[in-house]
């Protein structure tokens, strides 16, 4: 249908609109691409719709929230055109999620081992031995000592940092083409955050997996990503290479976001919150755009 480019993007979101049942829009004409092996940061304030984009891709939108318009292509395959079961399997085979809160993302009554190997065996069709060997290999890679003992333990026996490393191992285990990481460090201790971030970056480089990295921390954006999408009230207001965004931000909101980020190496610059006048102006734009959209729909 709309394959305008010659090569295949790992992820291609075209004009995505998502709304609540009463028609309130949560995402407005969002388009973004991920190339193979690329890390794209998705930034914006709380409630901007960052997680909603990830959920739309992975097919886990909340019950009443629906895609009203747009296309999502994973490795060139149109997800919307598929039956729910096919879509579920396709997404599972090609992508994975590193969740925000490692304390609630592991099943408290099941052992760690099966929680990693189950999908490999039952969804990816691997043999038991292969899945087990892969789990061991990945746990070792994320610096878990005694992987065999850990695989026999329950989540409550492990620390938050360890659980997040296990979830990272589980995400990378089936060698996905795309990983959605939704604020994977926000729920962790500051000391652990850096290790986790480094781990994701290392593994991403080694495997060449594309990562959609949701965060609201511009410091993290600078460290991990090659591309940035800035979101405000469900709209993309800036989409550029990370270095361009930091050196020469096009949108005043992006400028404000960068200014609002306390950076240790530029200690001279005072911390400035995003100006309220700017936020008010952006909201006015959004409301106006929505009114226009509603009009267009009525005709």
């Amino acid at each position, binding site marked *: 249908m709309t394959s305008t480019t010659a090569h295949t993007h790992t992820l291609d979101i075209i004009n995505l609109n998502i709304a609540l049942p009463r028609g309130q829009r949560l995402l407005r004409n969002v388009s973004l691409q991920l190339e193979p092996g690329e890390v794209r940061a998705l930034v914006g304030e709380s409630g901007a719709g960052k997680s909603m984009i990830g959920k739309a891709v992975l*097919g*886990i939108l909340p019950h009443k929230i629906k895609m009203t318009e747009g296309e999502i292509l994973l490795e060139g395959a149109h997800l919307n055109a598929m039956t729910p079961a096919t879509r579920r399997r396709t*997404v599972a085979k090609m992508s994975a999620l590193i969740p925000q809160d490692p304390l609630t993302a592991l099943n408290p009554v099941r052992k760690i081992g099966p929680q990693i190997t189950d999908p490999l065996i*039952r*969804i990816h069709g691997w043999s038991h031995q292969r899945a087990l060997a892969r789990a061991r290999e990945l746990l070792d890679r994320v610096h878990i000592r005694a992987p065999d003992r850990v695989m026999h333990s329950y989540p*409550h026996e492990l620390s938050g940092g360890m659980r997040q490393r296990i979830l990272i191992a589980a995400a990378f285990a089936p060698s996905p083409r795309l990983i959605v990481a939704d604020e994977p460090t926000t729920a962790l201790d500051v000391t652990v955050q850096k290790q986790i971030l480094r781990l994701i970056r290392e593994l991403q480089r080694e495997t060449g997996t594309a990562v959609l990295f949701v965060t609201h921390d511009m410091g993290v954006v600078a460290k991990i990503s090659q591309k940035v999408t800035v979101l405000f009230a469900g709209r993309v207001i800036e989409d550029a290479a990370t270095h361009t965004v930091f050196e020469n931000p096009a949108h005043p909101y992006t400028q404000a976001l960068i200014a609002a980020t306390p950076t240790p190496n530029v200690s001279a610059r005072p911390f400035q919150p995003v100006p309220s006048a700017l936020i008010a102006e952006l909201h006015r734009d959004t409301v106006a755009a929505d009114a226009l959209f509603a009009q267009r729909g009525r005709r």
Partner: protein
Amino acid sequence: MLLKTVFVRLLTTAITLFGVAVVVFILVRVAPGNPIAMMLPPGATDQDIATLNAVYGFDKSLAEQFIIWLGGVIQGDFGTSITLRQPVAELVLGRLPATLELSTLALLLAVALGGFVAVIGARKRGTGTEVGLDLTSGAVLSVPDFLWGLIFVLVFGVLWPVLSISGRVDPRIDIDFTTNFYIFEGLLRGRLDVVGSTLSHMLMPAMSLALPLAAMIAQLLKQNLKEALTQDYTTLARVRGFSETAVILREALRNAALPTLALVGVQFTFLIGGTVIVERLFAFEGLGNMAIDAVINRDLPLIQGIVLLFAALFTVINLLVDLSYTFLNPRLRHG
């Protein structure tokens, strides 16, 4: 640690049972109706009554009677039934298997039926199917077990007589078992005729007892399943490609079973209480049926024995529920 828990548990059980023994002993003696008077024909003289009173020890003081009885109980002698003239322990233990098999079957039916409906309800959450199942289980719950019994007798015993409505087993079958566990021993011995006949007799009373509990499990387990299905680990399972049914059965069920189990334990003891009337209704030769006879005949030793056995049964069930709770919850397993 575990040993200490078990010890405390046993001690409290002993104290509870002693308390039950005292209360029952006093209650059956202050309740109206003289057992001796019921054994004698009308017009018996005071002299005859006094003689019989002395024979059964009712002429002694309440405290004395209790001490004599308790002394016997400690040695395993629960006295002799006044009406049946057999040792109470023998009578009661002879009937226990029937009631145990009946209530176990009822429990299994309730868990299977309630669990199935709960899983379907959770799978179809937010749809008309869920509402329909909710309304149905609400209606089922509002009818008590003995009314279900009457309904079953009417439908499957009278209007469309396909099931046996009285007794525990076909009396024509020759049963030379060592225990009274007809189903259990029948399976071990490969006597499928006994098992089949017992099951067909047990089906209606067991269903009567099971239906209200099944409805309760359906409602509570579904609620707990829906709660578990909003948790992050179930979302992650969906992302990993598992179908909604697989997510429910593999991820949510065990988590939802934990809070449900506590209720099932309590309700199971109510279910056993329900056997008293339901067994009567179906002339099922169990402990409950015997209890009603014992009360009608003012058979004091027998009443005491049955009540004590029921009390012991309840404490054992509570213990089993606690144990299975620990087994299902890894957080409690490694204290």
